[in-house]
């Protein structure tokens, strides 16, 4: 068993980054995720693993540092919160367009605009539907615990390099600020420059050696037909990802008459709701999508069909509910319950909504 500690979600992102052998972190302070870079700067990984940590002048700069680091074939990441992620959306589409692997963490806060600094899930659409311009997808993982904040950093890098695509960890102020028990993985060595060259030298800017042609990292293509072919190619990759990478948690669905679909911190709150409902004789189950893209549409459709109705609980005005409705395709009623702007519901408020909207 690895080292067990009581840590904040944000601190764990930093710890996991070091331990998974990341090469670089580039960031800019913003509440409620500033502990990520603070922890890294305190840990000084450049003295131990050799990991580089840079405080950039803006989120625009930090995502472009990520672009540069990813272009070099290295394991690089950044983290921010909602307004900062908006600034990074240009960079994200360039990363996807240049087929570069990277990890971006969003510790979401309430919006729109500068909004609040309290937890929210209102960046679902931005994360899952793109955020930047053009035809592309971001793989999105939604942790619901401090342990998953740790584990998903490892998983996110694996997925990023498997598909050569940005992977976002979509968290929120609850998971980022909360302390929980976490089991930390053993330190993994960083890739040596030689290993980077062997693994990623076919595409990355590792320096043009005599044994290969020179590599260009770009997302520019002036010929629309060539761009179209490229888009077909990345969408084949996305189809593979949809076939292989869907992840979800199923909780008490076996006998469920009613279904709640919720992700991240909301799913935690809803589990308590389910206890309350079951204590009063209502058989309620939960599906927690772990990959928000690719979305567990099939599973949700399959489980929902056996129930009398679905409540989608999310800390926003109704975003994931659209995807759940597409999945369920009218088979049973699908209703939304949310709080917004940084307000967080408690389990009994979700239970009230469940009774009012679904159980009736």
């Amino acid at each position, binding site marked *: 068993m690895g080292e067990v500690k009581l840590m904040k979600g944000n601190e764990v992102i930093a710890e996991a980054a070091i331990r998974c052998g990341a090469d670089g972190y580039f960031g800019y302070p913003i509440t409620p995720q500033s502990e990520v870079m603070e922890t890294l700067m305190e840990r000084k990984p450049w003295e131990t693993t050799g990991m580089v940590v840079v405080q950039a002048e803006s989120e625009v*700069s930090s995502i*472009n540092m990520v672009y540069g680091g990813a272009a070099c074939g290295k394991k690089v990441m950044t983290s921010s919160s909602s307004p900062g992620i908006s600034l990074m959306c240009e960079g994200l589409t360039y990363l996807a367009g240049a087929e570069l692997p990277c990890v971006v963490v969003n510790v979401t806060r309430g919006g729109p605009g500068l909004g609040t600094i309290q937890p929210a899930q209102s960046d679902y659409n931005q994360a899952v539907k793109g955020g930047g311009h053009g035809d592309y997808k971001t793989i999105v993982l939604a942790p619901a615990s401090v342990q998953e904040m740790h584990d998903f950093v490892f998983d996110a890098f694996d997925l990023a390099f498997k598909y050569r695509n940005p992977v976002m960890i979509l968290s929120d102020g609850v998971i980022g600020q909360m302390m929980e028990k976490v089991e930390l993985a053993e330190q993994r060595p960083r890739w040596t420059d030689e290993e980077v060259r062997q693994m990623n030298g076919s595409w990355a800017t590792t320096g043009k050696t005599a044994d290969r042609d020179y590599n260009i990292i770009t997302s520019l293509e002036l010929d629309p037909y060539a761009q179209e072919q490229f888009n077909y190619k990345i969408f084949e990759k996305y189809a593979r990802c949809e076939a292989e990478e869907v992840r979800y948690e199923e909780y008490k669905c076996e006998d469920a008459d009613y279904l709640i679909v919720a992700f991240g911190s909301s799913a935690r709150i809803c589990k308590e709701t389910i206890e309350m409902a079951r204590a009063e004789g209502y058989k309620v189950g939960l599906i927690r999508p772990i990959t928000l893209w690719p979305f567990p549409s099939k599973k949700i459709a399959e489980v929902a069909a056996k129930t009398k109705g679905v409540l989608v609980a999310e800390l926003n005005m109704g975003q994931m509910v659209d995807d759940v409705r597409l999945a369920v395709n009218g088979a049973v009623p699908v209703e939304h319950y949310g709080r917004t702007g940084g307000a967080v519901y408690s389990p009994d408020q979700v239970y009230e909504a469940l009774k009012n909207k679904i159980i009736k």
Partner: protein
Amino acid sequence: MAEYIVEKTKENLVYSKTPVLTDKVMHYCPGCSHGTIHKLIAEVIDEMGVQEKTIGVSPVGCSVFAYNYLNIDWIQAAHGRAAAVATAAHRLYPDKLVFTYQGDGDLAAIGTAESIHVCNRGESIAVFYVNNAIYGMTGGQMSPNTLIGMKTATCPYGRDPQLHGYPYKVANFVCQLPGVCYVTRQSVHTPAAVRKAKKAMRKALENSLAGKGLSFVEFVATCNSGWKMSPVQANKWMEENLVAEYPLGDIKDE
């Protein structure tokens, strides 16, 4: 017409293209300064023997396609962000030689924050900055460097400082930053200028390899298409007007 083929021998070979330049035909307009500056970078990389350890970062603008012409690994950055991209490449490969190649729209307008902060952090990279006082690729719009009174597509009656502010002298600004070791302003419009520019570029790349800090080489350059002039007129206009605003020579050398 008869074709005369002269066999290449050691004795008659007076010039050959460096292998660091690719065989692709450049897309630049005849008379444009970019081609000459590309060639000089390629030659310096070749002469220094650093092709394998060089990473170039190209911008958005006419020179976005610089990556087609130099036989080195290239990262093409989003508009204005070359300095951030280069920062990561340099930090992750501190032994490699990293340079950016940017125009005045890219570096002095949209990329102002990145360009200033890369200097302020003193990243040991070289910045090659081509200043032709206009946006070339998008069709000749005003840049921050456009001269007062100069006509462009977005200041058709001439740049009016009341409307558009003043020409922005980046080199004179970044030279004040302690992270910057070398700032110079060069041109490539005469053989003598080309020789001087090449020396400056070599110094910049050597500084980078030696970890001395950031080297900033500005090229006062022509855009005869954007300026709506012949190449010869453009060279003359540049000497008389642009160089008057942006004087050539070293600004800082430490």
